[in-house]
């Protein structure tokens, strides 16, 4: 139903066709921003329903309506599943676009702009995992993984490749439901039209070897590799394959999964870029030894997901049948998961401002403030005394009343702490003495909401306060200081993570990877 904007009459709109105006919604807060456009949390004024509005940016588009948006709309209009984000409608803004100060935005050739209306989701997996003191339980990880695989299986059955599976594209609501989002890179595939797909997809850290080796004929297995990376990340507490560029990504994959040959991956030597990236020396597969602290069934499933040869990689359907999901502790009911409060009042802008101020203050004091997005290594080493520090959230710990854990909700800015950093580089982990967890972002997000029931936990000190030298893989052993079988092997996710793959662009011109979440 067309609703006329104030001062405008929509006389020529037929009642049942055409889109509603964005004026039916009241924008509450900007919750994301990608190259694609902004994402807002908004309220439908008539029903008070909270939604997410994703703006389709039209300027800089020489070819009209972006084909990526067309793909996303096409795909979302036909996918209806509880684990796939629901596109509710598309609305237009009738007048010239205005920015937040109400000034008309220059350079927009078109009179209006277009928004995709999605159901609102409180978190994304990365954001949730990065909450201070956050710690997933094993049944929780199983629950998320099962939902991820169920949603992906549905996509694959409907011949849709997602092509950008990563934590920040997996949205989670407070009912514990996980939904696949951001179909901006998705493509439909069919058996009679395979080939000539671009291999410049999937955020680098989650990109499978066949794409890195230049394949343009690929299928659902590409998404399953990404799922494997996420799975390992959930258990491990941090991303596992963090290449800075394509060659490095591939060599990291080979270091972990071994170098491929015709025996384990028939046809690999014929791949377009095989000769460019041919490994210097053969390496053995060491997934099992790298992750020996994972439980047997988890490791078993991970091995099948991180299979180099895509034709031998496990499918979503088969993964759902894996022992892992059918042995104790079983995946929990999504509804039984704790509800993590999300602060909505807080304006992203304010957070930015605060962050800027904090940065400036730090600069003035010539203090090297700790990297606010360092992801803390997991607790795996029984020797670490601060594991059992009181105040550390236990499993099923009460929710932390920090801001909404959208990965995208974090302030961005050139050169800001959100920039991805190379693994192991300087500042990857908090430096000694920073255990107060001074963190301008997090502090900011908690603002106005910090007086919630659990303020202490909200700002809890990172477990690795001193000498984060433990390194990625910690001590290996599976001893978690506290907690029974419900504990995740990976340990807690400490403070927010470093630049994840999300706005990764190092490989060159793959700006499609810059997309935010709701694309």
């Amino acid at each position, binding site marked *: 139903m067309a609703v006329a904007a104030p001062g405008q009459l929509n006389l020529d709109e037929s009642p049942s066709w*055409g889109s509603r105006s964005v004026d039916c919604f009241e924008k509450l807060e900007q919750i994301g921003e990608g190259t694609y456009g902004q994402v807002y949390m908004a309220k439908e004024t008539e029903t008070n329903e909270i939604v997410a509005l994703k703006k389709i940016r039209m300027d800089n588009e020489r070819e*009209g309506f972006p084909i990526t948006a067309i793909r996303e*709309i*096409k795909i979302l209009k036909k996918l209806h599943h509880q684990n796939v984000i629901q596109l509710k409608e*598309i609305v*237009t803004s009738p007048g010239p676009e205005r920015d937040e100060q109400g000034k008309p935005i220059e350079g927009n050739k078109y009179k*209006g702009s*277009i928004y995709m209306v999605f159901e609102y989701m409180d978190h994304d997996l990365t954001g949730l995992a990065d909450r201070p003191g956050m710690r997933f339980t094993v049944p929780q990880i199983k629950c998320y993984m099962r939902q991820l695989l169920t949603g992906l299986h549905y996509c694959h059955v409907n*011949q849709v490749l997602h092509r950008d599976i990563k934590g920040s594209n997996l949205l989670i609501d407070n009912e514990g439901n996980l939904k696949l989002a951001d179909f901006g890179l998705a493509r439909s595939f069919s058996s009679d039209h395979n080939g000539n797909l671009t291999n410049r997809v999937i955020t680098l850290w989650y990109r499978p070897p066949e794409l890195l080796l230049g394949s343009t004929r690929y299928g659902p297995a590409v998404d399953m590799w990404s799922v494997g990376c996420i799975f390992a990340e959930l258990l491990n507490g941090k991303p596992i394959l963090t290449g800075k560029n394509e060659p490095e990504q591939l060599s990291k994959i080979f270091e972990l999964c071994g170098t491929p040959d015709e025996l384990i991956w028939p046809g690999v030597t014929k791949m377009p870029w095989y000769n460019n990236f041919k490994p210097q020396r053969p390496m053995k597969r060491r997934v099992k030894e790298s992750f020996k602290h994972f439980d047997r069934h988890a490791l078993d499933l991970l091995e099948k997901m991180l299979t180099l040869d895509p034709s031998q990689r496990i499918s979503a359907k088969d993964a759902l049948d894996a022992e892992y999901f059918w042995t104790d502790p079983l995946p929990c009911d999504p509804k039984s998961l704790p509800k993590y409060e999300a602060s909505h009042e807080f304006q992203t802008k304010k957070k930015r401002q605060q962050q800027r101020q904090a940065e400036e203050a730090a600069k003035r004091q010539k203090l090297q403030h700790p990297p606010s997005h360092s992801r803390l290594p997991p607790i795996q080493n029984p020797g670490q005394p601060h594991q059992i520090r009181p105040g550390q959230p236990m499993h099923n710990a009460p929710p932390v009343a920090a801001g909404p854990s959208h990965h995208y909700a974090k302030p961005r800015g050139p050169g800001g702490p959100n920039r991805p950093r190379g693994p192991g580089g300087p500042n990857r982990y908090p430096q000694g003495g920073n255990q107060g967890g001074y963190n301008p972002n997090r502090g900011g997000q908690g603002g106005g909401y910090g007086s919630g029931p659990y303020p202490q936990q909200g700002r809890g000190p990172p477990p690795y306060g001193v000498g984060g030298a433990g390194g990625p893989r910690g001590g290996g052993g599976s001893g978690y200081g506290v907690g029974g079988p419900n504990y995740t092997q990976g340990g807690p996710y400490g403070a927010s993570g470093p630049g994840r793959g999300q706005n990764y662009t190092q490989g060159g011109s793959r700006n499609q990877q810059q997309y935010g979440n709701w694309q």
Partner: protein
Amino acid sequence: MAANFWTSSHCKQLLDQEDVDKVPQADSDRGITPEEFRLVKIHMSFHIWRLAQQVKVRQRVIATAVTYFRRVYTRKSMLDYDPRLVAPTCLYLASKVEESTVQARLLVFYIKKMCASDEKYRFEIKDILEMEMKLLEALDYYLVVYHPYRPLLQLLQDAGITDLTQFAWGIVNDTYKMDLILIHPPYMIALACIYIASVLKDKDTTLWFEELRVDMNIVKNIAMEILDFYDTYKIDPQRGLPEDKITPVMNKLPSKA
């Protein structure tokens, strides 16, 4: 696209003949008769087809473009949506949706070349891009269209009469000069085309049709409509409707101001 037709928006949007034939109010106010309405749609389907020959896109793109075009005028008037602009824009949008993008400037180049003599058909890139937005809205962003081509090939294979492929395929192409795609499921259109082809080429498919357990009355009705169409318009497949027949009608439609 994948999924299946029965759960698609295309299926849910199928219309009755009378809804499709109804002249939009604004146009009938200008004196456009149902017959003239039909003529404009035939004429513009040719326009899309000829333009598509120039920019070289797959048949499927043309079919989708024509479907968009026809769908628009079940909701919008030709007065508000100038068919001379809507037609190339439908081709532009369909080329994106079907993953064989044609650049807007290329389209504009060929429009100018093709319609050198008629100012009213010539548009600039910005006109097309602007209309694209209106078009998307008019289509309510439902972009996936199912066509009879794929079921046609499967059914011909099943019936063991693949030698009729080219002939039946041509009939399917011709159905886009009509509104059938808005009214009937694609496989029924395919069956009607197979029925016509097999009758004209003396292939006995009676038994095969019986085993299909489809409503033969509908198949035969569609087939009759197609034959009626051939009979009524006797269109030159290359040149479309004769000038003297279409020009007066097109002149009733205002061109861009």
